[in-house]
């Protein structure tokens, strides 16, 4: 096993779209750049599986005030409007960058056309009857206020990879960085290993950018099952503040066919008569006329009315397959074949679905300012790993995750390059290097211990069930926390890695345990409900106490510190409005049901 020492101006950790954007921009700003990716840059991260990118452009008739009020309504008055505005206003230039890189986009009207085009898509609230668009089989119609472009190429991220290489940045694949190196209060690099050959890597950099995506537990959505949040948790251990970590989300999954999320295609291109029913055969979705299956399904099941069925009879199989094949080219897998293999005939039979917990959201992560700097000097964060609070406790718009990846990546690239220009490289001390080696490699040296497979399953059993992080209650959050603390104290120091692949698993689990603790403690801390964040024991929004962001950091003694920051008054909306008007998106929880 060799030991590699590398030096660069800007180190980017993570090779999804945000990381690629950072690398290209930093390089074009004159910095030497290394992009380290634990998988293969171009085939990794959520970006590879994403389908849409949001675009705002006033020249196309988009109304800024209307967009912001949608964002604010969906985000329930705790969104960071400064970031929301930046993401909207910079969405079009970044979209143009992608087009210049050679990423094709579909035109909505002519499905199959790979020229640059726009999709009239939907965000937001209940809409007038005449709007034709139905999203994701919900009986709700949406107001069409904006545009989303659909990727016209499944291998779009390979185009991004080529752009990174063309810019002169260096990509190192299969390098999993697990720990930041610090000196004099500043981040000066990162350490990790090659997941295939086991070589140790120490990379010294004047600025480090975390682009490792959200923090998940290999749960519901295949697109982020490789994202264990290492970047977020290594930033946390380096003393950086996190924000928005109490918010999470779920994704619908076809039971017995665990990757297929067929609902979007059914709604967009398939059945006219599809419907979702509870165990009693009732169409409960109509009772509550708003967006979030995310929380509606778990609540319905919690009431004892499960399971959830989806009926999509009456679709013509061949026609649907034809449409899906085109649709699949944008991102997704061969779903019809998968359903066949699972023995599910969705054209004839109703099928069961569940809403599975995924993890941290698009806007929760390492707290950053508008230069994408975290609270630790030399450390930047972008994309899903960054805490911008631009969406609050929900998801503001289709394609906004990809959009924020581009916008934050671009900003971080410029600012990290500038920071690198103005800084000198600090050398890591031999003691620090030794200590990191020890942290990284110890699981390999153990001759026995807890195996990653086992511990991963225990974490999933603890955090994925709906009653823990979807329909929440203080007692159950405490119970889950008790188990996670036990995993931290007992399993983690005794985990064994039999080779460099299993070492990767151990370090992913290390991150998941830290992340689970953060997500449980912050959820306990927010004693109210808001958006998709539903506390059974606090079922209403609490404007008096919780127009706030929750911040979390690790102090010098290694203790987790929770605090709040008030949402500025000007972003709190009209406090004189009655509850139902202030929160038109009712979620059917608690007293509202």
């Amino acid at each position: 096993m060799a030991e590699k020492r590398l030096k660069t101006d800007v180190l980017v950790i993570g090779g999804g779209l945000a990381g690629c954007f950072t690398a290209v921009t930093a390089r074009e700003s004159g910095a030497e750049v290394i992009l380290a990716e634990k998988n293969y840059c171009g085939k990794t991260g959520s970006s590879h599986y994403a389908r849409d990118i949001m675009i705002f452009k006033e020249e196309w008739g988009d109304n800024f005030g209307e967009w912001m009020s949608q964002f604010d309504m969906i985000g329930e008055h705790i969104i960071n409007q400064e970031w929301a505005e930046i993401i909207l206003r910079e969405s079009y230039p970044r979209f143009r960058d992608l087009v210049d890189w050679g990423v094709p986009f579909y035109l909505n009207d002519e499905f199959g056309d790979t020229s640059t085009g726009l999709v009239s898509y939907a965000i937001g609230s209940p809409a007038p009857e005449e709007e034709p668009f139905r999203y994701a089989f919900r009986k709700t119609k949406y107001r069409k206020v904006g545009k989303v472009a659909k990727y016209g190429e499944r291998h779009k991220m390979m185009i991004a990879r080529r752009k990174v290489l063309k810019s002169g940045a260096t990509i190192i694949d299969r390098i999993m960085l697990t720990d930041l190196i610090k000196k004099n209060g500043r981040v000066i690099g990162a350490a990790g290993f090659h997941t295939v050959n086991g070589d140790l890597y120490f990379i010294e950099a004047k600025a480090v950018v975390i682009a490792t995506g959200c923090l998940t537990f290999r749960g519901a959505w295949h697109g982020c099952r490789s994202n264990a949040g290492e970047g977020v948790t290594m930033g946390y251990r380096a003393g950086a503040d996190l924000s928005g970590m109490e918010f999470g989300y779920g994704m619908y999954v076809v039971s017995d066919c665990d990757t297929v999320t067929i609902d979007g295609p059914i709604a967009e291109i398939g059945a006219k008569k599809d419907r979702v029913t509870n165990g009693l055969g009732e169409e409960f979705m109509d009772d509550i006329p708003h967006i979030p299956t995310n929380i509606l399904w778990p609540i319905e099941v919690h009431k004892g009315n499960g399971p959830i069925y989806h009926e999509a009879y009456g679709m013509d199989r061949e026609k649907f397959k034809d449409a899906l094949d085109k649709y699949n080219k944008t991102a997704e897998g061969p779903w019809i074949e998968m359903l066949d293999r699972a023995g599910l005939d969705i054209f004839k039979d109703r099928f069961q679905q569940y809403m599975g917990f995924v993890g941290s959201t698009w806007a929760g992560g390492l707290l950053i300012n508008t230069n994408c700097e975290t609270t630790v000097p030399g450390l930047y964060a972008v994309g899903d790993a960054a805490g911008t609070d631009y969406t609050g406790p929900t998801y503001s718009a289709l394609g906004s995750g990809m959009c924020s990846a581009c916008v934050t990546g671009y900003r971080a690239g410029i600012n990290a390059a500038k920071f690198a220009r103005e800084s000198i490289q600090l050398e890591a001390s031999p003691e620090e290097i030794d200590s990191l080696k020890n942290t990284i490699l110890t699981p390999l040296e153990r001759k026995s211990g807890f195996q990653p497979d086992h511990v991963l399953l225990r974490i999933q059993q603890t955090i994925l069930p709906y009653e823990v992080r979807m329909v929440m209650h203080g007692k159950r959050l405490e119970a889950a926390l008790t188990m996670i603390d036990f995993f931290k104290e007992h399993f983690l120091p005794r985990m064994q890695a039999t080779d460099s692949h299993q070492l990767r698993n151990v370090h992913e689990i290390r991150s998941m345990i830290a992340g689970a603790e953060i997500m449980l403690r912050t959820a306990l801390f927010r004693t109210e409900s808001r958006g998709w964040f539903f506390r059974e024991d606090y079922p209403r929004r609490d404007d008096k106490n919780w127009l706030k962001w929750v911040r979390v950091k690790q102090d010098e003694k290694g203790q987790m510190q929770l605090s709040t920051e008030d949402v500025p008054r000007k972003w709190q909306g009209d406090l004189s409005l009655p509850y139902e008007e202030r929160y038109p998106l009712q979620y059917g929880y608690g007293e509202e049901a």
Partner: protein
Amino acid sequence: MVIKRIDNDKCNGCRICVDACPMDVIRFDEENNKAVIKYATDCICCYNCEEDCPTGAIYVDPLRDPQVPPAW
């Protein structure tokens, strides 16, 4: 369950699936110049490998093993 097989007769040794896997499930057997399934329990059923394989040598089953605990 998960990735079931890489057909040795069809595999042309191009390594595309090795790069395509986001979980390091597939490794390359240099001696025989073939891709091999090394860590099947980490397969996340994303179908990258099957979709990308230029010779159709790979078959992925749509349910993970070990199974993820369902939400309810």
